[in-house]
């Protein structure tokens, strides 16, 4: 068995797999798909979890395998914990989808969490007069804030730093 399909085509298809916790963004736009290796008899897709404790990894693995199976491809999903997921691997479409979904995104990326969490604007009214309620939210990649201008609570998309 051999494949005439390209890695780019597979990457395009995988845009059909949503992030299980923020379904507005695909796993591709989230930067979770690493290398796609195509050999004579196998397709290997690298999956890079955002947080190592992400409980949805098994689900994602099977969703990716099922999607490719429907396209006639037997693929193996390799989960890579030995390299960090990097926010730089997110696509512009990914950032835009996060904004549309109502998340604040960090104004400045930094390897210092204090710095990153202190430069945030309200996604509803744009005010920078906000305070951090908790660096931990409903999922590992979300932090809770409150806006003092409009009074709303909101969530920051919080990448590992």
């Amino acid at each position, binding site marked *: 068995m051999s494949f005439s399909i390209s890695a780019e085509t597979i990457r395009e298809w995988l845009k059909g797999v949503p992030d299980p916790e923020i379904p507005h963004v695909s796993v591709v736009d989230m930067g979770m798909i690493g290398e796609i290796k195509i050999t004579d008899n196998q397709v290997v897709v690298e999956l890079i979890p955002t*947080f190592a404790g992400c409980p949805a990894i098994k689900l994602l693995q099977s969703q990716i395998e099922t999607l490719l199976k429907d396209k006639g491809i037997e693929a193996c999903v390799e989960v890579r*914990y*030995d*390299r960090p997921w990097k926010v730089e691997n997110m696509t512009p479409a990914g950032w835009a989808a996060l904004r549309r979904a109502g998340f604040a995104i960090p104004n400045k990326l930094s390897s210092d*969490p204090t710095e990153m969490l202190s430069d945030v604007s309200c996604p509803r009214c744009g005010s920078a007069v906000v305070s951090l309620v*908790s660096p*931990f939210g409903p999922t590992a990649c979300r932090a809770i804030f409150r806006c003092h201008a409009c009074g709303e609570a909101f969530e920051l998309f919080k990448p*590992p730093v």
Partner: protein
Amino acid sequence: MIEILEELILSLADDDLLIGHRQAEWIGLGPILEEDIAFASIAQDETGHAQAYYQLLTDLGLPTPDEYAFKRSPAKFRSAHLVELPNFDYDYAIALMRHFFYDAAEQVRLEALRQSSYEPLAGLAERLLREEKYHWLHAHTWIRRLGHSTEEAHLRLRAAAEQLFPYAWMLFEELPNESAMVELGWIPPSSELRQRWLDKVLPLLEDIGIHLTTPSEELLLPMKGARHGLRSPYFDDLYAEMTEVSSSDPEAEW
């Protein structure tokens, strides 16, 4: 060689697994909702980190993460006693102080492991450190905030620090075959890591008026051997609860 690697990885993984379990016990009991969520979130991270550590061994043909977590005899665990301690009467000062001591240690260990000559471990440490920074931020922020608040907060934090310090000290008990690990460039000596940890936690505690002294040998003695398999008196109950579901149907697929 692989046995020595297993000793190192299990000491890291078992600490994370058990602290994750203990922190998860706070779900529904946090003093405020945000702290409930924070402890739940941190616990989820730690359990995930344990799994990723075990997986390093699985990749070498050793047992799976589930087998390590749920089907291992207590004497084969390599956890420090600090993470086995129960939440007693759910004193938040104690929970916070354990979190503070433990996550400072995690920062120190992971910073060192990034330089490990065992590449899969160095790569994993790089990833975990990026997540752990939020734990450390959470821990030291609360210690400072409460430490500078009321007299009651100060007294309770001080009692917690004094009670837990010997346990935390023993996070850095020398590992079995440690000299070989050091020689291979896998990890610096535990005594060196302990010093870095002390340099991290002591100034922050002194800032809130808590002064700790080196624990006496007498206090440390009951914990000696934890990294060689000596479990604390609290382990059995913890293990029974942790494995309750998996042992009800050992052959089940999860």
